[in-house]
């Protein structure tokens, strides 16, 4: 991760990387616009991804997430604006750029008829590795992504999780500096999703910069350090995850006393301990739980302490993240503009 990036529209030599002393951004996007007829898929997007970090781009279906990734991976040309990725200008240096990016997502996929091994070998050859290099790189990645046993089978026989792992492996062949993950876990079951998250975290520890698009607050929280929320092609919020969470109310703690008769006592204990912020703890009689908004792990510990100090036996404590809908509601005052699937783990929260 050496070359810094240049944000301004300085003239860039065809073969050189833009550098600016001290600029820590691996991805810099300014005023990116892409219209499809009347539809403004991107309507002036600005964002930065610091080197070696994960930026989550959160938004509902149709918010422009995929269009953004396709612009940044040179698959489509933006109507206006600029973007510099790993020091290369997206518009003027597409070929150099393609060498230093990896792409995994809903769209960029593998050849279903080829085996896992052949897929990786093919991409290695297309990235100008020698035959021997391409072969050993493929073996290494198969090993790393636990696909060695399935290496000979055609990709269309793989399970959903194996497919995503192969997708990830495929995008890692060129040792990219910047990796785009376009909704990497949409449509996966929770266990498989956790597998993919674990792989992404490993890549980040290797120093890859990641731009991750997602519909799930939980996924963003798991993987990203910073978040950009987009809606209808526009950035509507951005910043560190904890800042945004503070803005949207953070997590909700759901406490179920062993005896439903103690619901009110539990709520009162928390109110008295001053742990429920300006409002009161909310009693949800239907599920016999008390709801408390919390912003930090320390607060969670304090809540548990306050309840046990009263000697109230508890049956369950769960934390819930705000759903995309709730995030949108608190950031924009309106519901997410397009319908989306509820995040698998968050369905309960909506109840």
């Amino acid at each position, binding site marked *: *991760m*050496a*070359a*810094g990036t240049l944000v301004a529209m300085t003239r860039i*030599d*065809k*073969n*050189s*990387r833009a*550098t600016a*002393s001290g600029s820590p951004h691996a991805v810099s996007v300014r005023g990116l616009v892409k219209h*499809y007829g009347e539809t403004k898929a991107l309507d002036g997007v600005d964002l930065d991804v610091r080197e070696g970090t994960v930026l989550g781009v959160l938004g509902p279906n149709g918010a422009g997430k995929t269009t953004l990734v*396709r612009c940044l*991976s*040179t*698959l*489509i*040309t933006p109507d206006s604006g600029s973007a510099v990725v*790993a*020091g*290369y200008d997206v518009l003027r*240096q597409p*070929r*150099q750029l*393609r*060498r*230093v*990016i990896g*792409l995994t997502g*809903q*769209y*960029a*996929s*593998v*050849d*279903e*008829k*080829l085996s896992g091994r*052949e897929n990786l070998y*093919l*991409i290695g*050859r*297309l*990235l*100008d590795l*020698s*035959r021997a290099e391409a072969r050993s790189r493929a073996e290494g990645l198969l090993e790393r992504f636990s696909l060695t046993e399935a290496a000979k089978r*055609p990709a269309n026989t793989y399970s959903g999780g194996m497919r995503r792992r192969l997708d990830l492996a*495929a995008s890692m062949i*060129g*040792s*990219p*500096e910047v990796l785009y993950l376009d909704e990497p876990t949409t449509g996966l079951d929770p266990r498989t999703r956790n597998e993919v998250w674990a792989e992404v975290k490993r890549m980040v520890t290797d*120093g890859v910069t990641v731009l991750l698009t997602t519909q799930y607050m939980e996924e963003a929280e798991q993987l990203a350090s910073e978040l950009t929320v987009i809606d209808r092609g526009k950035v509507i919020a951005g910043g560190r995850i904890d800042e945004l969470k503070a803005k949207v109310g953070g997590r909700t703690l759901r406490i179920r006393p062993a005896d439903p008769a103690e619901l009110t006592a539990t709520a009162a204990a928390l109110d008295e301990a001053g742990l429920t912020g300006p409002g009161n703890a909310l009693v949800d009689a239907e599920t016999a739980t008390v709801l408390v908004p919390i912003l930090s792990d320390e607060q969670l510990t304090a809540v548990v302490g306050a309840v046990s100090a009263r000697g109230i036996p508890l049956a369950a404590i769960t934390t819930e993240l705000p759903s995309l809908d709730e995030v949108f509601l608190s950031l924009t005052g309106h519901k997410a503009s397009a319908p989306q699937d509820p995040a698998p783990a968050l369905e309960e929260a909506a109840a």
Partner: protein
Amino acid sequence: MSAQSTTAAPPEEPVRTAGPGPDPSPAADRGDARIGLRAHLRHTGALVRRNLLWIRQDPESMMDAVLMPIIFTVLFVFVFGGAISGKGNQDAYVNYVVPGLMAMMGMNIAMGVGTGFNQDFQTGVMDRFRSLPIARSSVLVAKIVVEIGRMMVATAILLAVGFLLGLSISNVPGMFAAIALAMVFGSAIMWIFLTMGVVMKSAQAIQGMGFLVLMPLQFGSSIFAPTKDMPDWLQTFTDYNPLSSLADAARGLFNDAGPVAHDVWVTLIWSVVITAVMAPVAIHKFRTKT
């Protein structure tokens, strides 16, 4: 066919201005903007290999190239042979129709390129290719190379069936020249279908459209029957139909029958013009497909 064995050095190092330190990523050191001819060949070879692996994976995909020449030859020789050349006189029709069928099959296989290419787009693997630092034309060229291979298989089977049914060839170099001519014209037509494969929404649409265009071209030609008894307006059409030229050129070359130079030239000119117009269109559409 496998990829080139040589590993070309990257043509140019990027002139990187003072970066803060050496970059650990090996890929980043190859920031060359241009793709050299050797790299182009290597990429095309790797993609050809991909398409050949498909055939190994799914041998049924060769069925059309294997069965089409058998079925068409048998059908046309026995159904039309008697009517056109007189009962019991099928041998004469074999010699007439086999060179024509060679031209016809090229069209049908070319149409298959378009549908196959279209299906490639549905899976998302094309986006992967398009996000790699390769000349995007190598994806299309690889497709054409493989289809020419399939055309050769189909042609070999066509000739074998033809010989069984009484085909006679007096000019073997001429036969090879005719085959080469059919390949050149077929690959030109493939650019049209590749463009359709990129532009049109579904493989079915391409197939439907393809038949609508190919049927009049194939039957409104000298492929199946001599054109001299057709109405004048149709003869005008068949005279300008490149499939007539190709079929007539092949007939002439197979058996030294009459002058072929005119038909060969007409076919070649059509091929060059179609390729010159459609190849850039196909590559452009492929490059800018959203």
